[in-house]
């Protein structure tokens, strides 16, 4: 029998994988991918809580998280393309100086 804890453990493992990506990678594109993984882990957790408590609020929050993720990708990728055109690198260390 699959309980809430099973789903939450999987969501936590996904979150840990995303966390490893965010802290370990220096490629800015990989940082975006890791952020997507983090948001998806939260979504799985919300959907699981929604199912096992019979409440729809979790699914609603998951929808808004998906909307936030979509707009984050649009703006972030635009900024990343602009940065790559300007410096020719998507290394995180090239962002250390914030002078334009």
């Amino acid at each position, binding site marked *: 029998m*699959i*309980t*809430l*804890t099973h*789903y*939450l*453990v*999987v969501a*936590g*493992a*996904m979150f*840990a*994988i*995303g*966390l490893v990506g965010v*802290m*370990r990678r*220096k*490629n800015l*594109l*990989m940082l975006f*991918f*890791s952020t997507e*993984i983090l948001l*998806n882990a939260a*979504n*799985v957790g919300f*959907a*699981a809580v*929604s*199912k096992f*408590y*019979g*409440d*729809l609020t979790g*699914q*609603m929050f*998951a*929808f*808004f998280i*998906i*909307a*936030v*993720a*979509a*707009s984050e*990708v*649009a*703006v972030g*990728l*635009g*900024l*990343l*393309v*602009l940065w*790559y*055109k300007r410096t020719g*690198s*998507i290394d995180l*260390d090239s962002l250390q100086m914030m002078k334009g």
Partner: protein
Amino acid sequence: MYEAVAFYLFSVLTLGMFAITVLSNNALYAMSALAGGMIFVSGFFFLLDAEFLGVVQIIVYSGAVMALYAFGMMFFDSTQEVREKVESKKVLYALSLTSALLIVFIVAAPIIGANIEATYPMSAELGNVQTIGLVLFTKYLVPFELAAVMLLVAMISGIILVSKRLDNSVTLMEEDPKEEAL
């Protein structure tokens, strides 16, 4: 029985795909693995009786977000591997500590949340999609509209950031061919 088989299959596949995404050095492999992982996450949603969420996950993530990444990747040299320095042990310690704390909270969460009662209960006679429509357009109408405005702002900012020479008119672009050659 089938639920358990599906759950373990999807969890192994999802975690494997996301591990490939995080650990791969090739951006193209990472993107493909991420798209696969998103599809498997939608399998979780179908398993959890959230059909609408699963469909939205497939459409938005595997359709829109991955297409956006694929087009964005045309701007980068995706075969070039970003040289990544090896960090100190501090990151490793921090990650292990955070993961351990996360597991403790996860195991404790059902105990803490034992006396939660449903605010918007799922009804049996209406389907998942109908219930979501009812709740979304009554209780969550203002956040819904705000999300719509946020997506509009994100779309405009994406267009403005990536398109070059927005100060010139697009229809008058062919009148200065020497600028085009640059």
